[in-house]
């Protein structure tokens, strides 16, 4: 019935669509395709990698979210999952692999070590990969459970759907970053008047004593 009707009529206030036709913005269509076929690049260097494998395995079944196609060539991937600590000798490799991936591409920093260095606060371990490559999602945990990684992928899908454009305008980040920074400018330091607040006076005196008392250190 609907197919026989004309698509539009001159002077009509809205479009008359035939059946099985959906109107959308091209940006949203592209984002919808991209978010449902994320191909992960597993950059697994430690125990987080075991959880990453568990996430892809049968029980948690990453295929439900279209992200089960792990590829070991960065040329074929669009989502890098950094799972585990990254040492300073490995970081140039990580950066090179990131640069070999094609746009559009995203990055998940999985676990405490990849995000912050974790307990490995030593000369050899990079204290968070986001110092050197862009990161879209952080997953807390040591290591995170597969459910947490799945949640991160779902959140990343939401982000892609929300911000994605077919020409990748969202990756031209310099202006966007500057706009974002302008929103979170640090307010001027509050000046605290302790003269009328005995509670605060006690706290300040206590913290000063702790700082100067060497017996605490022994």
């Amino acid at each position, binding site marked *: 019935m609907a197919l026989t009707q004309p698509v539009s009529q001159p002077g009509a206030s809205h479009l008359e669509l035939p059946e099985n036709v959906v109107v959308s913005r091209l940006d949203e269509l592209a984002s919808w395709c991209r978010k449902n076929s994320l191909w992960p690049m597993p950059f697994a260097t430690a125990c987080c990698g075991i959880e990453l494998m568990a996430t892809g395995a049968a029980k948690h079944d990453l295929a439900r979210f279209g992200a089960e196609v792990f590829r070991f060539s960065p040329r074929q991937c669009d989502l890098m999952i950094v799972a585990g600590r990254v040492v*300073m*000798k490995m*970081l*140039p490799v990580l*950066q090179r692999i*990131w*640069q070999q991936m094609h746009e559009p*591409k995203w990055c998940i920093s999985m676990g405490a070590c990849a995000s912050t260095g974790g307990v490995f*606060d*030593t*000369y*050899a*371990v*990079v*204290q968070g990969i986001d*110092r*050197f*490559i*862009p990161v879209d999602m952080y997953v807390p945990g040591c290591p995170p459970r597969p459910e947490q990684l799945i949640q991160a992928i779902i959140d990343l899908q939401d982000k892609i759907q929300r911000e994605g454009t077919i020409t990748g305008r969202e*990756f*031209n*980040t*310099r202006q966007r970053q500057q706009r974002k920074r302008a929103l979170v400018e640090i307010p001027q330091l509050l000046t605290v008047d302790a003269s009328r607040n005995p509670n605060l006076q006690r706290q300040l005196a206590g913290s000063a004593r702790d700082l100067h008392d060497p017996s605490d250190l022994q």
Partner: protein
Amino acid sequence: MSSPSDTLHESSKTSPAANPHGEALEQAYGPLEYSVYRGQQRVVVPAEKSFDVLALLKQRGFDLLVDVSCVDYLEYRGATDRYGLIYLLASTTSNERLTVRAFVNDPEPAIASVVPLWKAANWLEREVWDMFGIHFTGHPDLRRLVMPEAFTAHPLRKDYPLQGRGERHNFPVITRDHS
């Protein structure tokens, strides 16, 4: 050369006779320092004689070099020398084991390489060079083993800060605009 070993551990000094190889070593190289720690035979040799002593021990049946390692005794209680090198030897025929220790000092700690005796020493000595900066004279290929080649420090020395000197942050930053 005095060694920190007698005050650092609860080892008991023994006479050369208590060590199965003691008499042969004494005959060749004069008095050395012997001790037993939890049943392990140990001998301390002067660094300049270490190669000859190890060569003799290899002749006497120690055909397996288990490990070459090092300890930095900087600011250690009772220590008189800075670096303690440790050679763990074993014999695959008699199942004997022997720990040989030698001490070297700053400013240019060096000792003879034992690669001519055991090929296993090649990478072991490279690791000690990488981590402690001990120079093994006569080593055929003394490059860093673990750290990147451009690394300049020897990170297991006690005077090297745990968090490094900024090496872990010395990389270009890749932003979305670059990649």
